[in-house]
Structure formats: structure tokens, C-alpha cells
């Protein structure tokens, strides 16, 4: 059984079909990249999976269970975490608190009655937050206010928040967008480290082909909402339809 499956998934915005009969399947432990030109429907697909958007038709199953009809926080509780295309962090909180919020939600569920307990008593939460910040290289900045971080660090915190939720499936929407070459390099290293050490299943949306070919087991190519090709990095490099529709005949 695949970890994540979409079945004839369709999303229409007015007359525009942003997701067109997509059948995607992600196995446990697999790293899948979704590529495609601007407006191909990559973000829309991810937003459907995280329940930020309602599908027009079709089904999405996670661990065999349909998640259409669940609230976003329920999907996260089931084990799907997402890093946003822009740095979506808690600006006025410290870096540590940013990670703690995610760890709290994952350790103690979507809602609890711990309103009289002290935060310091949540040792499990602190440990997860610490480990995560260490992993994304922000531990030495833990007590800074998140809004003070430079942009690249904010993006890494963004990934850190997604990781602190301890997901079974991590969806990353352009994690390197807007980063400098050095920051991009550091982020790719981070993703590779996550891949190696945590054995995490992830779906990555990325424009940089070099990164995509380096870290994916499988690549899915979207164009105008449709899957036009799918295969290993080598297969995609040699695919004529992809060359035509997306890569514009550029030699790779």
C-alpha cells in the first residue's frame, strides 16, 4: 500500500483546471519531486493534499484512509507536514518557541487542557524542539525573535517547523525559493541529511533541476495540471515530451 495516493484528483478555479485527473502515488521511504513550469499546478496539488483546498472531485488517501473531509490540523496529526513556499513562521515568538509549537502539537495532539501546567514541564517537547533546531542549524539562535532572522534562516526555520511536527510525509514547496546560492547549498545539504538520517518520505517541489536530479528517487512532471511524465531522474532527462513541454529542448 502506498503511503500517499491521489485518485483522479481534479481542482478547478472557475474555468481553470489547475489539477487535472492526477493519479499520484508515493511509497513509504520514497523521495518524489514534482516539477513543471510556472502555473503548472504544483502548489495546488500540495495544497489539496494538506487540505488547504477542497478538491473539485477525486480522492486523496493517506495510509489507506481517505483524508478528503478532514480538517488541515487533522491531516497534520495523521502525519503529513508541510513547509510553505514563503517563510510562514511565528514572527513575534522566539526561534525556540517556533519549534516548540510544532513539537507540542505533534506530542500532545491538536487540542489539550493543559492550561494550568507550566511549559517547562513538557520535557519531550523541549527535546524535539532542540533536536530540530540543531538539525536545521538554528540552535545557537534559539532565543532570538524569529522576525530578526535573515531571510535564509527564516526559510530554514520554516523547514524546521515542518520537521518538528515529526511527520511521516513531508511536503516541501520550493524550500530554496529566494535563497542565495550559499543558503541554497546549505538547505540542499539539510534535505539530504534528513533523507539519510531520518529516512523521511518527502515530496519536493523545486525549480532547480540540479537539486531535483540530485535528491529524488522519482520525478513527476506536471503541465497545465496534468501529469505528462513520471520516472527516475535518468528517464526524465531522456523523455522527449518533457523536453518539449517543460525543459524547452534545453540540453541537460
Amino acid at each position, binding site marked *: 500500500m502506498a503511503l500517499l495516493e491521489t485518485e483522479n484528483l481534479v481542482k478547478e478555479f472557475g474555468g481553470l483546471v489547475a489539477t487535472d485527473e492526477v493519479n499520484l502515488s508515493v511509497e513509504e521511504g520514497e523521495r518524489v519531486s514534482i516539477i513543471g513550469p510556472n502555473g503548472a499546478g504544483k502548489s495546488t496539488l500540495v495544497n489539496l493534499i494538506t487540505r488547504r483546498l477542497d478538491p473539485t472531485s477525486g480522492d486523496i488517501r493517506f495510509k489507506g484512509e481517505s483524508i478528503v473531509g478532514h480538517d488541515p490540523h487533522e491531516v497534520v496529526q495523521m*502525519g503529513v507536514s*508541510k513547509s510553505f513556499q514563503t517563510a510562514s513562521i511565528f514572527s513575534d515568538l522566539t526561534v525556540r518557541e517556533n519549534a516548540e*509549537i510544532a513539537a*507540542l502539537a505533534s506530542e500532545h495532539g491538536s487540542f489539550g487542557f493543559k492550561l494550568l*501546567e*507550566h511549559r517547562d514541564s513538557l520535557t519531550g517537547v523541549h527535546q524535539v524542539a532542540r533536536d530540530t533546531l540543531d538539525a536545521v542549524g538554528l540552535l545557537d539562535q534559539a532565543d532570538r525573535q524569529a522576525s530578526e532572522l535573515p531571510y535564509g534562516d527564516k526559510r530554514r526555520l520554516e523547514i524546521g*517547523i515542518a520537521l518538528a*511536527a515529526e511527520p511521516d510525509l513531508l511536503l516541501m514547496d520550493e524550500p530554496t525559493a529566494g535563497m542565495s546560492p550559499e543558503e541554497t547549498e546549505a538547505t540542499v545539504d539539510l534535505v539530504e541529511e534528513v533523507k539519510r538520517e531520518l529516512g523521511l518520505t518527502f515530496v519536493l517541489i523545486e525549480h532547480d533541476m540540479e537539486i531535483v536530479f540530485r535528491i529524488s528517487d522519482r520525478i513527476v512532471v506536471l503541465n497545465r495540471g496534468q501529469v505528462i511524465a513520471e520516472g527516475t531522474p535518468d528517464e526524465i532527462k531522456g523523455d522527449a515530451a518533457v523536453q518539449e513541454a517543460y525543459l524547452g529542448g534545453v540540453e541537460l
Partner: protein
Amino acid sequence: MSDEPAAAADGETGSSFADTVGIWMPRGDELRVMTATAVVLAVFPFVFSRMPVVSDLLQGYQSLATLILIWGIFALGFDLLLGYTGLLSFGHAAFWGGAAYAAGVFSQHVSGSPILMVLAGTVFAVLLAWFLGFLSLRRGGIYFAILTLAFAQMMFYMSSSPLAFITGGENGFTGVETAELFGLFPLESELPLVLETLLGTWLYAFVAVIALLCVALGYRILHSPYGMVFRAIRENEQRAEFVGLNVWRYRLMSFIISGFFAGVAGSLFVIHGTYVPLSSLYWTTSGEVVIMTVLGGTGSLFGPVVGAGVYLYVENIVSGGHPFEFVAPFWHLILGLVFVVTIWVFPRGIWGFFRDVRDYVTGGED
């Protein structure tokens, strides 16, 4: 992710009697904050209304000191919603006035014990907050503000005529029958010995003890996981949802908690005045608590209490003449000016200004 049973196991199953008691013990800075609050509460009426020179300057009086604490409790709870969770309610008169009527009617028909009156009013406010929160929190931002306002105004009209046989309609509720505290001490009587000089009346002592408990409760909530979650929701509601938090339920909790504080305050208000004016449900009451909170400084525990103090001071003392005869007729204008100037010069309110000064002096980062 799916290890909730395990988390529950080391969280709950392991809790012994000692842990249960432990939860209620003050910890860390809590004791320090409570002690400081207790000291301020203990000297406030003396400084305000009896201390030579100072009280002559201030022109304060005992009953106003009590009223300031009562509104302070209201504003403190309101700020948990506005300053920490980021929700602007324009209908908190519903809980303040609702609790006042509930406590008043309770005193007439069931018991005039001040403690039971507070309990009755608060329970009413909490249940009402649950219900109205459920209906209002479906929409965010301006819709939430308008919905809360609409519900509170509905309650105002209900008690002004359809329910006048209970509430007294336009005349307000006049049947309040407050009994002695613990069946022994009339609230308006003076405290024994030095306590009389410091605190004045039993009523003040009663209100001050409850205010102290409210400060402790507020402090504790803000330092629990809830405080962090509330701030996270204020900062980025969408992200909070996408780390797996049920934003809706936390918001409802925040709303109910602020309803609780409004209920305690509203009940004390009827005990203090032995009368419930119809205006306690009017939208101006909702507006007043917003102004007090913003004036004092949102996102702090004590700011709103200070805001309540300044607001009531201008409303009651400056409007009353000596030594403010020259401005007394314009006290509404003075209040507006105080508000505008404060927010202009200190956008984070009076308390925010104190904080900035402290940080400047200590060079600390907070």
C-alpha cells in the same frame, strides 16, 4: 506523530496525589509576581484615598479603588483574548452585564452570599461565552467583532423590555440583596485595626483577594502551553493550523477564559454597586473595556489593569471638579486626549512604555 497514547501515559497515568497538588503550587516567578501584586493591592487604597498629601493631590476615594480593581479584572481577561490570541471582541458587555444580572437575580432568589454570587455570575458568563463563542468564532476579523457586538446588543434589548419582568428593564435591576461575607462581615463595614487604614472595607479586601487570584490564574495560563499557542495563533493562524493545532478550539477556549474573567468582574460589580444598570449590557461597556486594554497596553498582564485605573480616574475624578474644575465639563474630551496621546507616543500602551524604560535602563532584552 501517532504516539499520543504514549504521551498520555507518561503525562496522566503517572500522576499521583503529589502531582495533583503540585499543579496548584506556585512555581518559578509566580510567587514573586503574586507577592508584588499582593503588596500593591494592600497599599493601593491607602495611597489613593487616605495617605496625607498624596491622596489630597489625587483626590481618590475608597469606592473608586475597589471599582478600579473590578474593571482591572475585566480588562485583564479581555487582553488574554485581544492581546494574546489576537481577537477583537466588541461584545464583552454580554459577559460583564450578563454576569451582573445573573449574580443580582441569584442574590434575590437563592443566596446573597458574596462568594456564591460571584460563582453564579461567573458560571453564567462562562456558559454564555461558550455559546456565543461557538456562534461568533466561525468567522474571523471584522466579522467576529460585528457578530459579538450584535449578540451583546441582542442581550441589551432582551433585558430592556422582553425580559424586563426579571431584569427591571430601563430602571435596571434593583433587587440585589447582598449578605455578609461568610455570614459574619457586612461588606461595607470597616476592617479591624491597621487593615482599616490600609485596605479600608471588607468589600475591598474581598475584591482584592479575588483580583490576586485572577492575576495568578492569568499569569499561569500565559506560562502554560496555552499562552504559547495563543500567541502563535495571533502571529500566524494558518501556520498554527498547519502544525496540527485545532485553532478553532483554542480560540474558543481563549474566548471562554476571557468570558470567565468578565464574569468574575461583572459579579463583583453588582456586589460593589448593589444595583445592575441596564447600561452594563450596552455596547459602550464593550467599548470601554477595549479602550482600557489598549490604553494600558495589549499583550501584557498588568497593562490593562493600569489602563482601567487611568480610564476610571479620568471618568470619576477629573469629571468631578476639585482640583480639576477648569476641565471637569470636558472630561470626555480629556479621556479622548489621554487615549490619543498615549497611543501616539507609546503605541504599546502605558505598560509597554514602562517596559521600554526598564529595558533602556537595564539594557536588557526583556
